[in-house]
């Protein structure tokens, strides 16, 4: 279309009308010092329209805040959170550490495991029902909390994993000191805890792989395998991984 280019030459437009118009035009016209570079250059580099100095500092501060937010939260949880040990599910050792990151799951990731807990069956059925009722593209997954209890004897190597005792929709308050609520996200039969993905340095990958394969070969079916993850759980139920135990060896993330 024969569009004029306000972006290119606002003051040179052949219009015979006034061209002071722009709805958001409190900044005035182009900077008087700004030269008119060729159109291609100006398209690539951008012109310099008048702006306030805060137009740089405030966005930069917010960007920095956004970058630092997730790590700061993780550091805080790591410092203040409760140490909890989670039992991993048996995994296929050949596809485990192959890629750029590792995807693990836990015994509390499957709904079947949690349904056996007293009173949890109804909660989970209700969650499933609510999930099925949502039909919109924009619906959220359903949040839930799994209450975990510390083992009697924690001083083993590898440490004994915590056991799930209840599932709730709302974050439980007033838990005894040997219990903690872990935030999970329910999606069609699976629960995730934002603890599924790990980035392992390349050089460690092969040794770890071999060890896991050996452990899984040696572990009797149905017995808990000596492969557990240590995490820290914050007050809001969010968790960050600290490291993992392969038998009595500890690997810090």
């Amino acid at each position: 279309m024969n569009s004029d280019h306000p972006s290119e030459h606002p003051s040179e437009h052949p219009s015979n009308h006034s061209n002071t118009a722009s709805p958001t035009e409190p900044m005035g016209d182009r900077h008087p010092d700004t030269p008119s570079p060729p159109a291609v250059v100006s398209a690539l580099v951008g012109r310099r329209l008048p702006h306030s100095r805060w137009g740089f500092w405030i966005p930069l501060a917010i960007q920095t805040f956004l970058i630092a937010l997730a790590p700061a939260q993780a550091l805080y949880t790591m410092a203040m959170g409760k140490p909890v040990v989670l039992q991993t599910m048996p995994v296929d050792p050949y596809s485990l550490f192959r890629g750029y990151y590792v995807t693990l799951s836990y015994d509390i990731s499957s709904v079947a495991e949690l349904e056996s807990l007293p009173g949890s069956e109804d909660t989970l059925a209700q969650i499933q029902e609510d999930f099925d009722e949502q039909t919109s593209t924009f619906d959220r997954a359903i949040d839930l909390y799994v209450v975990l209890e510390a083992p009697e004897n924690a001083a083993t190597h590898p440490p004994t994993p915590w056991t799930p005792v209840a599932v709730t929709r709302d974050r439980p308050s007033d838990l005894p000191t040997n219990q903690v609520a872990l935030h999970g996200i329910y999606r069609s039969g699976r629960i995730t805890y934002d603890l599924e993905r790990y980035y392992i340095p390349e050089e460690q990958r092969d040794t770890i792989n071999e060890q896991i394969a050996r452990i899984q070969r040696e572990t009797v079916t149905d017995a808990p395998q000596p492969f557990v993850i240590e995490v820290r759980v914050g007050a809001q139920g969010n968790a960050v991984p600290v490291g993992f135990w392969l038998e009595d060896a500890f690997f810090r993330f």
Partner: protein
Amino acid sequence: MASEKFRRQLRQEARQWQVDGIINPQQFQQLQARYEFDSLDSSARDRFVAILIGVGSVLLGLGIITFVAANWQAIPRDFKLGLLLTVFLGVNLVGYWLWQKPLGADNRQRWQHRLGAGLLLLGALVMGANLALGGQLFHIGGDPYELFWVWGLGVLLMAFGLRMVPLAGLALILLGLGYWLGLAQPDRWSGLPGLPLLMRGMPLFAGAIFTWLAYRCRSHVIFGMGAIALVSSFFVNVTDLSDRYLTENLPLWGIAMTLLPAALLWSYDDALWDMLRRQPVSFKRWFRPVAQGLAIAYLISLVYLASFHWVWQEPMELVPLTTQIARLFGAQRWLWLNPVILILSLITLGNWVFLARPTPRTPRWRLVQSDLIMLVLLLGLMVVPFWHLSVTPMGAIATLLANVVLALFAAGFIRQGLAQTNRSLFWCGLLILALQILSRMLEYETGLLLKSLAFVLCGVGVIVIGLWFERYVRHLNQPAALAPKSVEETL
């Protein structure tokens, strides 16, 4: 100020002239003062130093990057985090410092401005890398779409602040990636609170924020991208709504939703903002041509689609108007009571009323000719499918009508292209016409010989008419005298 090369040559020449006696020493002094011969050597030295520093810095930077990469696994996590933030802040600060430096009268600092702009753009990219690496350092799970949203919003703020078109474009691309990756997500949303709401309200977000950004940056491209974002996300909302609430046939709603984007885009008027800000209405229309161009492109695609006869197959059941209205206000009222649909419809309506308002030039309520034609076209595009789906099937007539409208579009483009000697308009018209002829031929005629004949004729026609047009353009002496003032008179 003249270029340095010229000044250097002039100095050499002027010295020779003085020796030859063409100019006297006084005149040489004047030339020297005027063209600053004295500063030639110092500026060359400055530049040499700058290049040395530049090359040195690049090597130093490469060395540091390689060193860090080699020892990345061994660096403690907190240190890595600090390093990432330092790089991010450093690139942005240096970029801004170079970018905002006032340009000298001779534009010698322009390279600094460009370098600064480049660094600011790099800073925006580094922000994404920092977000990704920050999450990776702490093994924070998270989906790519969340990353793109946060990144895009960060860059969007900077684009607003600095009014930089490249940053704005990057922000729009990132937000688009966040939006579409989020939709492609097989599972449901999680994570960032407020994000599902933002996704749901994307048409309004795009309409408000991206349009505002386009004015901030004075960029047609940003406005066009924003309009495309609005229309495409609008259709996501419409699809979502029909999945949820469209339990029975409701052609009225479907047709209205299909035509709403065109009506909205065509009626977009920059002057509305002046009115809302209670300022005198100006005559300049920054983005109206872009919006109208997009509206026309959208309508042409629609009419082209409607020109195929299989689109107009007999409907399964005819739904009378009364039934439709009963459904629309009954169980299926959430189809239009949805905030996004309702607000966009009201804005469209308001825009058209605004277009028809009395002005000093037209003291009565009326639409200018082009708006009127568009309104009639939109009503026609509304009535024909409605009649077909609700009153009586009219497949053949509707197909014919669609083809006539498409041909009129092509003719209008060609006529306008000739009148304005606007090459792209003319070629668009020619292409539409050729596309239409070929489509009809392939649709109705299966004989290979006839097909080849049609291809040949179309090809020859396009070449001959195109060559004629190019000659016509070249020989036309005063194109401006023939040209109407704006695209508003297209059609």
